Each structure stands twice: as C-alpha cells, then as structure tokens.
C-alpha cells in the first residue's frame, strides 16, 4: 500500500466521518436535552435523502438548486420532527428507556412505510451537481470535489452548533433546560417549547446528513436501519450529549472503516464495531464527558 492510496482512503474516510458526525450530532443533542433515545433518527436521515432527491429533481438538478436543496430538504424533516414532538414524544418524557425506544421504533415503521408509499421500492440516485463533480489533487492523490465539500461542511456544522449552544441566549436556555427543567419553567420560560425546538434541530441535522449523502450513495429503503446503529454507537462512544465527543467518535468510526478496507478488505464492516466495543469496555461512559 503506497502513500497516495493511504491518503486518498483517509480523505474518503474523513468525508464519510463528516456525514456520520452530522447525523449523530442531531441524535446526541436530542439525547442530551430531551433524554430520549430516538430510533427514528435514522429514518429522518432517509427521509432527508428522499426529499433532497425529489427537490433536486424539481429544480432540474442544477448546482445552485442543489445548494438550495441542502437547506430546504432538512427543513421538511425538521417540520415533521416538530409535529412528532408536539403530538407524541412529549407524552413519554421520563418514562423507561425501553418504552421510548419502542415508541420511536413505531415511528420508524410508520415513516418508512410512508416513504415506500410515496417513492416506491426502487432505489433513486442523484448525480453530484456539476459544480462539485470534478476532483482536486492533494499531494498527488485525487479527491472528488464533493468529498472536499463534505470535509468543509462537517467542522462548519460543529462550529455552528457550538456557537448556538454556547454563544446565544437561546442556546443558554437549551442548556439550562437540559440541566433543570423546573428551574427554567420557574424563570418564566416555557421549557416544553424549548424541547420541541431542540427535537426539530435534531431532525434538521438528520435531514441534512441525508441530503448530503444523497449524491454519493443510492437512496434506498433500509438506509435508515443501517445508519441508526452506527449513529447510536458513535453517540455513546463520544459521551452522551457531548458534541465534541461525537465528532471524535465519528472520526474514529469513519477512518476506521476506510483504513480498515486497506488492511482487512472483507471484514472492514466489523472494524468499527470492534473499536466501539474496546472503547466501551475500557471507558464505559464514552471518551469525553457525558452530560447525563
């Protein structure tokens, strides 16, 4: 294995990590603030991908249209999450984990059947928009421009989340709600709505992850169940509710997978699970500090 293959594998792994990070960040925010384990998060991701496909098609696959899609498709998912939080989720706050898991699993079943009803069973694919379809040479190895875009969007998302949570008034309220809901209510802020907003942000991030993956993978039924387990593990390994931990875990996962392909091509699928297991055995509560 020479240096250029290694480098391009690392870059591919990095761009994959960024999508994993964006999806998992949504999950970890919801876990940290609402204390709800959301199985439907993967399904939000799938819905985001399908919405992005339809929207991009409607905008006749133009590059500018695609950038617009990246903003709008996740908004649709966020709206759906908002409604779900208002009508269903808020009834089970504080209940056992298993009940929460099964309620959100019910949503997985319902939404994925709806997706099948609307988009059918055949897979969809979305070409990389023209502006990002080339490739860039970095130290002698070529990397698709789109992957570079992903590598930029990932840290941008992390920074945006950090700014929101630590530098805005709303973010301060959200953090206070995560810490002590009753106190927030006592100060005259309706924490119930804060939770709805946070869940919508979670949905937005899942939708964004789905829209971003759309041009690089087949958009297909079942993409939800394969990402959700990975996403759960990333969140736990990173430390529940910790965004930087999630970023770190997503990097370990994505890079582990792409470098693993070079070392053990057939069992690359297993490597992230082995890493997760080792980390959980050595540090049961995750790499960084959990907010729980």
């Amino acid at each position: 294995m020479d240096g250029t293959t290694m480098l391009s594998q690392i870059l591919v792994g990095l761009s994959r990590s960024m999508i994993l990070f964006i999806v998992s960040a949504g999950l970890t925010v919801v876990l940290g603030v609402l204390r709800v384990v959301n199985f439907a998060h993967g399904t939000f991701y799938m819905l985001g991908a399908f919405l992005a496909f339809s929207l991009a098609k409607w905008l006749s696959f133009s590059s500018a249209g695609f950038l617009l899609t990246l903003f709008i498709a996740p908004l649709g998912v966020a709206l759906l999450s908002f409604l779900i939080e208002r009508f269903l989720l808020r009834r089970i706050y504080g209940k056992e984990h298993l009940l929460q898991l099964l309620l959100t699993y019910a949503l997985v079943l319902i939404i994925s059947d709806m997706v099948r009803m609307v988009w059918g069973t055949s897979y969809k694919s979305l070409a990389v928009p023209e502006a990002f379809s080339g490739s860039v040479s970095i130290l002698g190895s070529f990397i698709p421009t789109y992957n570079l875009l992903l590598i930029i969007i990932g840290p941008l998302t992390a920074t945006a989340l950090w700014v929101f949570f630590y530098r805005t008034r709303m973010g301060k309220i959200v953090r206070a709600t995560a810490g002590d809901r009753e106190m927030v209510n006592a100060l005259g802020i309706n924490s119930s709505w804060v939770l709805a907003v946070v869940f919508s942000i979670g949905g937005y991030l899942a939708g964004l992850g789905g829209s971003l993956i759309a041009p690089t993978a087949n958009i297909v039924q079942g993409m939800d169940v394969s990402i959700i387990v990975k996403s759960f593990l990333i969140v736990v390994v990173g430390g529940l509710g910790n965004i930087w931990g999630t970023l770190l875990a997503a990097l370990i996962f994505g890079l582990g997978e792409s470098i693993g392909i070079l070392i053990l091509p057939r069992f690359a699928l297993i490597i992230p699970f082995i890493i997760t297991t080792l980390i959980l055995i050595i540090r049961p509560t995750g790499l960084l500090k959990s907010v729980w």
Partner: protein
Amino acid sequence: MQVSFEGNTKTVFWQIILALAFLVSLPFFISDYYVYLAALILVRALFATSLNLVVGYGGMLHLHPAVFFGLGAYSVALIITKTSLPFWIGFVLGPIAAALVAAAIGWFCVRLEGLYFGMLTLALGQLVWSVVYRWYEVTGGDDGIHGIDLPTWLKSTSGSYFAIVIVGTVCFYIFYKMVNSPFGVALQATRDNPQRSESIGIDLKRHRLTAFIISGFFAGIAGTLFVMVERSVSPNLLYWTLSAEVLIMCLVGGMHKFWGPAVGAVTLVLLRSFIGSQANYWLALLGVILLLVVLFIPQGVLGYLSERLPFGPFKSKVGEKHAQC
C-alpha cells in the same frame, strides 16, 4: 415470603396438561398452513419468553437477543449441511453455542448500566451479525443456507409441530419454575432495587450474567426449533430488526407477566398472517399498534387485563410480587 405464581403445584400441573392436550389436538382440526403457523407462534413465544427473563424480570435493556436465536439456527444448519454428524448433534450444540456467546457478550455488558448496557449489547450483537454476514465460506454470507435436510419424521408439518410442542412445553415449564425459584425472585429484586438487593448480599453482576446466559441458551433453543419450521437460515435471523420485533412482542403482551411475551407473540404472528397478507402496509400498521400500546397500555395487553378483570388466569402478578411481602 409466598413465591407461588398461579395457585399451587397441582393446579399448575393441570393447566399444563390442558394446554398440552389443546396443542397436541390442534393438527387434527386445522389445515397444514395453520399448523405451520402454530409452530411459528410457539417458536416466537419461546424466544420472546426467553428475552423476558432479562428484560422483564431482570430489568436489563437487552437490545439484541436475535444474535442468540440466529446462532442456534445457524448451528443446526451448519452441522447438518457441512458435517456428517447425526442431525440431533446440531440441536444439542445450537443452544450451547448460543449460551457460550451469551456468556462472552454478557460478561462485558453486565459491567454497564441502563442505556450503556443496551448500546453494548447492540454493538456486540451487530459485530456477530457482520461476521456471519461476511464469512461466505462457512455461513453462505447474505444468501444464508437453504434446503436443510432433516429426518423424514421431522420434515412433515405436523411432525415438526409435535417436536416443537414437546420441546416448547419442557422449556416453558423450566422457565416457569425458574422465575419462581430463589434465583428468579432475587433477580426481580435486583431489578426493583439494585442498591438494597446488593446490600442484603445478592451478587448483582452474577445474577444478571446468569440470567443473560440462560436467556441466550433458551433463545438458542428457539432458534434450533425455527430451523425445523423453515429449514433455511439467513443473516436476517441475527439482524437487530428481529430483536426489535421480539421486544415489541414482550411489550405488547406485557413484560411483567409470565405469559405476556407469549401472548404478544400469538397476537403479532396472527395479525401479520391475517392482515399482513391482505394489506400492503403491514409495517405501518404494526407501527400504529405499537404506538397505541406505548401511549395507552404500556403494561401490555395481559397487564391491562389483569388490572381490569378481578378474576381468572390473568390474576397472576409477577411484577407486583414485592408489594405483597
């Protein structure tokens, strides 16, 4: 402390005889398809009941029981198709293999609590799944193994059904004895109050690990029985969506009742075969049912009935036992 479950041993004995008589007479009244369905229900019921030992009685968030079910099934399939050993070796080795893997997975998991426990079962379970999925030479990869040959007397629908009824009855009886044994009661104590049970000398980790292994062993038995019904295996038997399905059975029936998971299995398998074959959107329907159960009767169908009906066989309260003493 009174640890009887439903009346005394004599009534239990008669209940079991009656149930057996009913189950054994079934093939004489219904068509082959329904016998097949009944066999499938029994397998699922045994699987769900085995999971309930960990989730309902032990209060552990076990998210991936399908691994043990699948390992049981694969052991039978591999012994029969890849070796020249007699077929019954597979049925003996299946549950043992499942229990051994359960011991390995459980050994790590019982160190963790709550959600972390659940996530580690999920991670390790998916690890086993991906090995089975990718190891083409041995497991046939995503194709699975088809056309598993069994002796003639086990091949007929009613033959496999009777075998499943006999093994199933023995397993249910053992389970029933176990949850009412000192071990079972101690396990429930660790669920209801971990600190206090530890302070009176119950070894928390050891009880949890034991329950985890026993549960894996019986899930393995259910897996081997499944091969009798379908005569093929695929990696889907170890995928986490099957685990979710079985968790749903436990919840729908009622996790704090001995017969709850079995009731859930009967309900869901019947619903799927009657409605699922008609309606195109079975999964969405299942989702709606699950949603309603979680929101309105989180104690499950059996739990709900036993609260409402002041009489009858539903009156057995395993979950509330601690309230009596």
